[in-house]
């Protein structure tokens, strides 16, 4: 019988991770270096590696692949490195400085030297003002001067040689006619020119955010276009017959055609695969409330899942730019394995935000790193076996780790090296706990009601200590922890989202206005998913509104029943909003005269096209005596006890489902090391995940 496969490829900054699942749910994985000059090369290399495990040719594998999903950092990188295309921007007369004014770019930092404008995406010569004006009600105050606009477009394209265009006019989300006329002029003059109009990409109030979003879409167009075309071509040449799916920053997949039109939706999509995977694994294990913890080389990323719903953040700020983007709500801090530890002018130790990156990396890599990094800390107290890092692929230099910690931390603080390293370990844990607090306590969630799900190479060294600090009782470290994000790609659905500003007062507004807008948005979303091959029956629609009181500028997103709304539903909507408001800010916090002040600013429809997904494979329980998995003992300076003790060391490959150990212990896998402190028990479940239980 022929086997069919699903493939997920996650292109990260350093590694390209590839996961293949067969019909039975068995998973194979491979890693290759990311190849920025041509990303498809890294994918090809990973494919070449993984087929060895499968005993197939690449062509056989690809031709038998039913699902191929790719997560890519290409758009993220283009923005981070400011390597986008030369964009021409057309805006309303009188408002050419909107991007520079940037709504005032002051930050909450006392240091005036750090007060600099956001990155400049459009050169000032390439911003032109158009004679037109629409007012708050969508009425035309000054009609569009078509002849003038045409001259300006010609000048941008033919004299200034811009490579893509962006159009953002005031109030275009109320009346998009002027933007559409301009788009038509551009299409007639230059049929292949990439153009984004703000009423298409983000028809929502606040012109600065809308302009940034519009410009970013055009800015990232060519890089995404050539990447996506090249990728599909290469894979088709090697035998792939199905379309490639692309992961978006919302955690849903889209088609390459859609991604080419709206490349901005790929921004920051890198870490979302892991959150999706965490939620699927949570569903399997019966965990409804999950905090994810993903620690890699440069950052620690954490997100919250409540009742198996992934949280989103709207109007996201990316690279100091205020956008209208909706993203999976992931909080990142600069605390990865490569983050540098130092002593401040005040005489206190600090971790990050500077990172030694992959090159030279931590001092213990022996590649010339002179600064003590987080990985050096774990190495110095002997938590990591220097000969079994990445399964022995890299031998760590423990002496070097001890030297830099002694020189840069211990001596300035007047401590011995072991205590300095243990202190740094605590500081890393404290920083991560603060990050977890930011996504839980500060958003009205009690972390003690959550399980921590930790993946990424470095998390497992710290995760039990974080859980202890936060009062969390359960930690799960998944099988394949280091390729967990790629695995998440296989577990994702297709999704599309459309949003529209309505600014609708709940007490005064007519409910039929909501139904009209919801119907239009629902049709857009459904049509777009149908283009990707989903039938209406495979598509689930979710309706949401961004609610606020009166002049409040911070909105809460509230679920609205997906049905023909009636006047009677108003009470339900008010009640849902007030309940969520008081959950977040405290009982009685909602406004005086609340019912009359509720405004729904935006309506949003999200459509999900359900895909077939591989399951998790359950093994059989292998007994409870873990001594077979032990490879002996090692002297470790326990950071929580500040003493050196002889600690049992276990190997993941010898561990069997059902085995259980008590801390202190260390479990070594090929791609991660798990530290189990005193008071913590670790057990392997039937899916080969480790489940840690805290006293």
């Amino acid at each position, binding site marked *: 019988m022929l086997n069919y496969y699903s493939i997920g490829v996650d292109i990260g900054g350093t590694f390209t991770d590839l996961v293949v699942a067969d019909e039975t749910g068995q998973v194979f994985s491979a890693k290759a270096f990311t190849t920025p000059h041509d990303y498809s090369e890294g994918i090809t290399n990973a494919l070449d590696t993984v087929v060895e495990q499968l005993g197939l040719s690449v062509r056989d594998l690809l031709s038998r692949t039913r699902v191929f999903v790719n997560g890519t950092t290409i758009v993220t990188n283009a923005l981070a490195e400011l390597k986008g295309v030369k964009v021409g921007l057309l805006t309303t007369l009188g408002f050419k*400085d909107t991007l520079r004014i940037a709504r005032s770019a002051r930050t909450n930092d*006392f240091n005036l030297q750090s007060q600099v404008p956001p990155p400049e995406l459009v050169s000032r010569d390439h911003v032109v003002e158009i004679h037109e004006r629409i*007012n708050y009600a969508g009425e035309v105050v*000054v009609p569009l001067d078509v002849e003038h606009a045409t001259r300006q477009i010609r000048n941008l394209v033919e004299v200034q040689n811009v490579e893509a265009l962006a159009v953002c006019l005031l109030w275009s989300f109320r009346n998009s006619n002027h933007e559409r006329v301009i788009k038509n002029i551009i299409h007639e003059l230059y049929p292949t020119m990439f153009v984004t109009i703000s009423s298409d990409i983000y028809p929502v109030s606040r012109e600065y955010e809308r302009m940034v979003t519009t410009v970013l879409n055009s800015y990232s167009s060519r890089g995404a276009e050539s990447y996506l075309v090249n990728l599909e071509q290469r894979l088709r040449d090697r035998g792939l017959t199905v379309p490639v799916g692309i992961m978006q920053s919302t955690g849903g997949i889209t088609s390459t055609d859609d991604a080419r039109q709206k490349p901005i939706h790929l921004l920051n999509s890198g870490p979302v695969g892991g959150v999706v995977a965490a939620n699927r694994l949570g569903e399997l294990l019966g965990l409804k409330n999950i905090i994810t913890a993903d620690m890699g080389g440069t950052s620690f990323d954490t997100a919250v899942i409540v009742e198996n719903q992934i949280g989103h953040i709207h109007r996201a700020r990316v690279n100091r730019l205020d956008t209208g983007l909706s993203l999976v709500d992931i909080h990142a801090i600069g605390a990865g394995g490569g983050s540098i530890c130092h002593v401040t*002018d*005040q005489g206190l130790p600090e971790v990050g935000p500077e990172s030694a990156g992959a090159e030279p990396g931590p001092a213990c890599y022996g590649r010339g790193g002179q600064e003590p990094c987080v990985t050096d800390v774990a190495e110095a107290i002997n938590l990591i076996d220097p000969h079994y890092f990445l399964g022995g692929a890299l031998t760590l230099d423990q002496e070097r780790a001890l030297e830099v910690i002694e020189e840069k931390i211990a001596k300035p603080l007047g401590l011995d090296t072991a205590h300095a390293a243990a202190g740094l370990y605590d500081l890393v844990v404290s920083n991560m706990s603060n990050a977890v607090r930011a996504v839980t306590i500060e958003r009205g969630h009690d972390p003690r009601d959550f399980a921590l799900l930790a993946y990424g190479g470095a998390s497992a060294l710290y995760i039990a200590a974080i859980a202890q600090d936060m009062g969390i009782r359960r930690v799960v470290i998944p099988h394949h922890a280091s390729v967990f994000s790629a695995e998440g790609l296989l577990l994702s659905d297709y999704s599309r989202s459309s949003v529209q500003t309505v600014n609708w007062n709940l007490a005064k507004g007519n409910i039929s206005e909501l139904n009209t807008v919801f119907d239009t948005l629902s049709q857009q979303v459904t049509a777009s998913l149908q283009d990707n091959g989903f039938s209406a029956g495979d598509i689930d629609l979710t309706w949401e509104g961004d609610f606020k009181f009166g002049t409040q500028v911070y909105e809460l997103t509230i679920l609205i029943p997906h049905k023909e709304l009636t006047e009677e539903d108003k009470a339900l909507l008010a009640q849902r909003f007030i309940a969520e408001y008081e959950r977040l800010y405290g009982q009685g916090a909602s*406004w005086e005269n609340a019912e009359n002040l509720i405004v729904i600013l935006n309506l949003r429809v999200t459509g999900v096209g359900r895909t077939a997904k591989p399951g998790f494979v359950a093994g059989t329980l292998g007994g409870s005596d873990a001594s077979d998995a032990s490879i002996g003992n090692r002297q470790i300076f326990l950071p929580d006890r500040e003493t050196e003790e002889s600690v049992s060391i276990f190997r993941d490959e010898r561990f069997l489902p059902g085995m259980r150990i008590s801390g202190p212990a260390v479990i070594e896998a090929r791609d991660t090391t798990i530290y189990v402190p005193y008071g913590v028990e670790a057990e392997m479940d039937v899916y080969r995940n480790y489940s840690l239980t805290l006293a």
Partner: protein
Amino acid sequence: MSSSEQVHSYDAFTAQVIQQRLKNVVEEMATMLLRTSGSPVLTEAQDFCTAIFDVDGEHVAFSGYVVAHLGSSLLGVQAVIREYGLEDISPGDAFICNDAYTAGAIHQGDVGVISPIYHDSQLVGWAFSNAHVLDVGGMSPGGWAPEAYDVFSEALSLPAIRIAENGRILRDIQRIIMRNVRVPVPVINDIKSLIVANLTAERRVQELVAKYGLETYKMYCGVNKELADNLIRKRVASIPDGVYRSQEWVEYDGHGIQELYPLMCSVTVAEDHMTVDLSGSAAQSNGFVNAGPGAIIGCLEGVLVMMLGSDVPVNAGMFRSMEIKFGDPGTIVNPLPPAPTSCGHMETGGKTEKAFIEALTKALQLSQDPWVRNRVAAISHNCWPGNAWIGLDQYGEYTAFPVFDCGSAGIGAQATGDGLDVGAFDMQLNNGIPEVETNEGVYPMLYLYRRLHVNSGGPGFYRGGQGLDLAWVPYNHGQGLLGTMENACGQMPAHGTLGGYPGAVTVFLKSDNFDLGQYIREHGRMPGPDDVTGLIQLRNHLASTTLGPYGVFRQITGGGSGLGDPLLRPLAWVERDLRDGYISPMLAKEAYGVVYNDETKRVDAQASEALRTLLRTERLGHKPLKDFTKESPTFFRAPLGVFDTPGRREIYCAFCGTDLGMREDEQWKKQTVVRSHELMGTMRRMGIECQGLEGYRRDLVEYICPDCGTMLQTEVSASLIELAPMGT
């Protein structure tokens, strides 16, 4: 004895963990406030603050935002302790205050809530939150009264009184407040938000104390203060001992007479200690410009953090090495009741900051520590030209609204780069201005344009940040509007530092006879800055001006000043500013000595070098004797250096090495070439906005290296000729 000896044995990791946690807590309080408040004053202008104190009533964490609340929070907590005594305070209490004289408020519009924090029924500290609420009563809406004569006409005064007991708001107090303000519901909602923020702090500090134990928590609050003190002392000690002076002028024309109030500032550095003395400043005003002690302490401490301590979390230890002398009572910096104070923080307070930064910059440039030397800065425009309007909105309902385009003045140039455009007050961290669609959607306004104010950043090696130029018409079916406004910096611009030049000032203008509909019909487009006819300049402090059906309101906000001699700014940077339309060719020529071809969009390098030599020759009256410009650096360098070799005269020109004489009391100035120009004429010749001023003489004074012709220092001065009554 140096205080570092007082720190005995502590764990640096615990100190850092507790410090970071407290910083997170004040941030979480801020998040709570921002998310629950419906007031654009908080959400757009970010006019609020949060802080945590230890049992000693000293800061252990401060969130930033409105920095001047360093003073009001400190005095507010002290007022609660003083008035009630610890025995009369219980868990669940909260206290409210807004009075400058009895509770240290920076002005009445900023309402503070102070809550004790208990753990196991033991007092462990205090939480403080503050917000500028939409109204506090008094004769004018919005929290400031430009035409008041005393504190009683300005607002409802709250002298640190109990607002909540057992966690419940006291109904009597709530009713008094609601009866005395114009918009009771939003105001009481903001007060609720402040209480919520303090409750958050209470829970978090309790968790911290539970984890570490009270004694350890207390000890580390102390350790962190000591460490911050040591850091600032180390930096102050790197500055040569001496007295560094500056002078500013507070402006007021709200009672129909144009007056300038001199504000004197001297900074005396003695080893690791600094005294800031404001003695000799003008007698108090009967207008709302006087700054109470909370505002003065907050402004001075805020500057200290910005200049010397922005790299570490704020706590009370940072201020131990700074002593403040207010001078005799009865002045603008030390007023006596009933002198009005409702704009003291933005008028006298803002100018105090400017004066302190100017004096401190003179001191820092002589420091032996490169980090400290690199903290020199030019002066931000430091003006928040508030304007609020009442009338019918476009939906036919009565409305009162502040227009937060006022948070748009330019920031001063820094030693690391040009000043930020549209940065508002130095003291207003995280400032924002609303988007045009936000304002037009809610308020009866239609903007004609909103652009950067060209030429407003003062020229320098690094240029000041630019302000805004905007105009709008009332958009309420011909009903018109009534406005109140205050502009603290209309006549005296931000002074240039270390050889840089002043930035533009702020101006309000209006026209009462511009027919927008007709203009559009005739031209097919919206008018620009030069197209609106009939504009007249408005008084800077005005309680009621009408804007009729053919009215246009125009606001031009000023820029930050420049740092360093503009003739040293690399040609390529000036060319970029010219192409961007940031500066005009006239300014390029007059201030930067740069010749620009508007057709080719290129700077003529040869002609520019020749012009720069010519300008240096003009400065000196002869050709420069030394020319270092071939090796002119592309990074900022302070113009004065200090010899540390015995026997040499102390100060030299850092560019050509010429000895300039003694440091003390700026004696070195006697060795320089001094030129004095009438201020407004000089600024306008460059194309920089400056208001006229009757009754005073204003000068721009230049101090030039006699050998190389480099601008070493510029000063702005003003002297009274005769007080002039003015029209409306």
